[in-house]
């Protein structure tokens, strides 16, 4: 039976909690309710209230307490009910967790995962649609994971739970029940920092992650059919660490790069990726590096506004065709 993206997340946590008694959950409504999106359905019954903790509405406490338990060897998974609310725990993440190993001279660590639903496209409005990765992208000491498939959601989450550093795990809520696939029966992980080439091509490279993988693939297919262009599509899977080698190799081959993400254009990770490509692959480039990203505004609620703001297949096609003409 195929497994949905949300079920893959559920299963990853369930299996890790079975495997390692130091893994535990804390967050708002993760217990009795099983999570606002049912990611932890049945956990309270299986693991009990000591390992599945319904917290008060207190994100700073949730993250801070996770850090405290993690430095003493536990492996907490903290849930943000929506990734947007991670802002309420910002200090604990960027100052407390991110610097901990550094200021202890490598003699302490925070093996913790903070997970939560991010992303737009579901009429969530300003505070239930954000892509917070860029708020954290510049902070050393953090890892940032952004799965696009059910297979990766499970494998990356398991790798994140076993990782010895704080991991921000941003699940795209649009994908929760919209994608599914057959998953292996046996235990597996997907290592952090290893991109996936979702489609091979020689004319142009699309670099993307999370939910934007799908419009990127759809655009690549249309470019092949309608323009005879062979587009390589790279799914980054994690942004910190970022698999630069795979990106550079592909761009050296195709000479053209389009970066596609749902996060905003200004300050989004695409800017850093473009800069690094210019630094490392300048001689190979046959045209400007272009970005398709959300408009530089807030994630507005009204459907015509949201549609205007978000990237889509047509916007990717338009940019790719302009670039192809170089």
């Amino acid at each position, binding site marked *: 039976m195929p497994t949905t993206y949300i079920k893959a997340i559920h299963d990853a946590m369930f299996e890790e909690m079975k495997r390692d008694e130091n893994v535990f959950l804390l967050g708002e409504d993760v217990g009795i309710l099983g999570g*606002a999106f049912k990611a932890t359905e049945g956990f309270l019954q299986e693991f009990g209230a000591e390992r599945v903790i319904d917290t008060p509405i207190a994100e700073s406490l949730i993250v801070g307490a996770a850090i405290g338990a993690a430095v003493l060897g536990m492996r907490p998974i903290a849930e943000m009910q929506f990734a947007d609310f991670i802002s309420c725990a910002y200090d604990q993440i960027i100052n407390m967790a991110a610097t901990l190993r550094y200021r202890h001279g490598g003699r302490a660590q925070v093996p913790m995962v903070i997970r939560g639903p991010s992303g737009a496209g579901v009429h969530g409005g300003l505070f239930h649609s954000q892509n917070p990765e860029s708020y954290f992208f510049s902070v050393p000491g953090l890892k940032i994971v952004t799965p696009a498939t059910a297979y990766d959601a499970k494998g990356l989450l398991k790798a994140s739970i076993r990782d010895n550093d704080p991991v921000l795990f941003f699940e795209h809520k649009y994908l929760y029940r919209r994608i599914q696939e057959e998953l292996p029966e046996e235990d597996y992980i997907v290592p952090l920092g290893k991109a996936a080439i979702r489609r091979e091509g020689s004319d142009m490279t699309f670099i993307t992650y999370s939910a934007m993988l799908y419009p990127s693939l759809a655009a690549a297919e249309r470019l092949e059919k309608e323009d005879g262009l062979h587009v390589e599509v790279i799914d980054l899977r994690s942004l910190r660490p970022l698999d630069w080698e795979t990106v550079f190799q592909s761009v050296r081959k195709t000479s053209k790069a389009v970066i596609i993400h749902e996060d905003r254009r200004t300050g989004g990770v695409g800017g850093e990726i473009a800069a690094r490509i210019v630094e490392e692959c300048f001689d190979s480039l046959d045209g400007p590096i272009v970005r398709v990203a959300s408009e530089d505004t807030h994630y507005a609620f009204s459907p015509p*506004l949201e549609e205007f*703001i978000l990237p889509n297949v047509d916007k990717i096609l338009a940019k790719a065709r302009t670039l192809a003409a170089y």
Partner: protein
Amino acid sequence: MEMKEDQELYYYLKLTREFEDRVSKLHRQGKILGGVYSGKGQEAIVVGVCYGLHREDFISPIHRDMGAFLVKGVDPKLLMAQLFGKKTGLSKGKDSFLHAGDLERGIFGATSMLASTLPVATGAALKFKMKKEPHVAIAFFGEGASSRGDFHEALNFAGIHKLPVIYICENNFYAYSTPQNQQMAVEDVALRAEGYGFKGAVCSGNDLHAVMRTTHAAIDRARQGEGPTLVECKTYRYHGHSEHDQPFYRPQEELIEWESRDPIQRFEIYLEKKGYNVDQIKEETERQVKEVTDEAVRFAEESPWPEGKEALEDLYADPF
């Protein structure tokens, strides 16, 4: 209470309920998108607190406080257009639900981040004190929001400076699925006030008169420079946390008990005891609120959508 006041209060209770019931229905029909939260069962709190406020008094309502907008004088048509995401709504479609205010009427639009409005309302009270204005700030919040640091930071500052602010806790015993005993180890949120150097009071949030007595005494004290109060109103939400939620996590019996203390029915008993012709008042009021709500829905449905590129507007005073 004068007859005119009684009738007005009844009108606002009924209007809030009719309006919210209609919003729930429109949500089921797919006409209102996004998260929809109902305050059904809690109407006496917002109506009781907001009735009689000055236009300049500053209120910061939360997600269940549709009635606060109505009592403070927002045109129901604009409020409905806001929920639809239409161009004519308070935020011109930028966000939905109660995330836009109307500062001309002293209504502050919240973000989703619970308790974040409490420091802001405290700042509004600071302004009133600095400028020696006779107004008050009123911050609504759920008992769940009182777990956040912003709540404690706000109350502490208000206590130090004796600010004219009233914190109104709508304690409906649940934060989404989480019961009060998983949120705090005390029975009354109002107890928190003492630790910040001012008074806390508890009243029944389903009894309009109790709400008015308690909160208006606090408002009067604040206007006279006697500082903040934390008022806790015990109540219950009839619906799920949002219209998507099936509240299996609470006993049916509990809901029934609270429904039997319905704030509107209770007020009808009061009207009857006062010797008014309740049947007539009821019929007349129901006709009025239905008309107002119908008109609001019609307006919202006929209103235009914003155009896509308007998503880039209203970011700055001087766009660049």
